[in-house]
């Protein structure tokens, strides 16, 4: 069953939607949210966090674009059956890497090259 902790801090320089997505990613990575399970309905999560519903939906859409969850009208957001914890963990690391690189002024091309050489 789902058990997910979502943390957002407006004081951090990261958009709230990204913070929501990161929380879910971590939940999937550490096994608290398993494949096939439902995430909290956007409306309820928005009220709970005191943020706009659009912010929550933007976060969920990010996760859908990454292939971690499915969004269906009427059924809400569910973790895709094929999603593996390790996948979410790697995605979360990749996010962290991109954030860190940008913070240090590394260009996107440079970062891609860096990753390629690390392979």
């Amino acid at each position: 069953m789902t058990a997910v902790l979502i943390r957002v801090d407006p004081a951090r320089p990261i958009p709230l939607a990204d913070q929501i997505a990161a929380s879910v990613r971590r939940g999937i990575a550490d096994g608290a949210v398993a494949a096939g399970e439902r995430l909290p309905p956007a409306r309820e999560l928005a009220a709970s966090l005191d943020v706009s519903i659009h912010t929550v939906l933007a976060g969920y859409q990010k996760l859908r674009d990454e292939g971690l969850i499915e969004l269906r009208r009427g059924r809400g957001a569910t973790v895709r059956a094929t999603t593996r914890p390790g996948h979410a963990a790697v995605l979360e690391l990749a996010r962290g890497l991109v954030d860190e690189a940008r913070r240090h002024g590394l260009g996107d091309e440079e970062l891609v090259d860096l990753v390629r050489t690390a392979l």
Partner: protein
Amino acid sequence: MDGTRRRALLTGLPSVVAAVPGIVLLARAWDGLPEVVATHFGLGGAANGFGTRATLLGTVIVLPLVLGGLFGLIGAMTPGRRGAGFDPAKILGAASWAGGGLLGTIGVLLVLANRTATAERLPLGGLLLGLGVAVALGVVGALVMPRSTLQPGADVPTPALELGAGERASWSGSCSSVFVTALGGVLVVAGLLLFWATPGPAGAIMGAAGLLVLLFGSARTTVDRRGLTVGLGVFGWPRIRIPLEEVASASTEDVAALQYGGLGYRIVPGGVGVIVRPGPALVVTRRSGRRLTVTVDHPETAAALLNGLRSRAG
């Protein structure tokens, strides 16, 4: 002998042992018994129900064995720890001994009443005798049944989650029971069918009971700036809320089967339990000292967050 087996024997054996006198008596009187025997008696002691000799076997032998088996099973499942302030083991001990004693006495009286074919009456005060035996054995049962070992929940508040001054956090979790949901569904359907066949209160009551059971087939728990919210059933409604201001502390507990006396909305001394299934649960202590226990998967994070929100609010 381990605790489980000991509790199973202590609760299961009384019914079986208490049935022995009736069985011996029945065996010795068998050939002299009439083909048709009295099986049911009015309050005055006069027989008002009759059956074949074989029905005596049911009352004197089969019923006590089934009762003993059931009590033994419940005894084995009753945990070696106790919920808030009352000890289910002691109550079960009393119930199993009293039930076994009552049934055993009835068995003896039944055979005695039928042995003398002329007087198909339950000996005077038979019911009182049975009740007397039940009460006496019930007291013995409560005394011999070992007290549950652990005191109510360790109740150590879960370490608080560190929260930034402006940080917002929301935890939501749920748990469900396929068994309870299926039971509720079956009751609702059966109630509808019954109502359709014979419109009347019976079908309506059964359907309503089914809906009530369905409510406790699953629960969704949310912890956030507002406090604790528990939504019952598939639709998460009705809801139980504890505002953050009313929360004193939160901890976790591993709820054993029957620790709260069963599933559903359980009122126990010192608090209330929303028990969907045995297993991990979140325990919230209110400022008044009363506790709410909600079964939910991964409750540690929920308790940590609630304590974090509580300590930040000051």
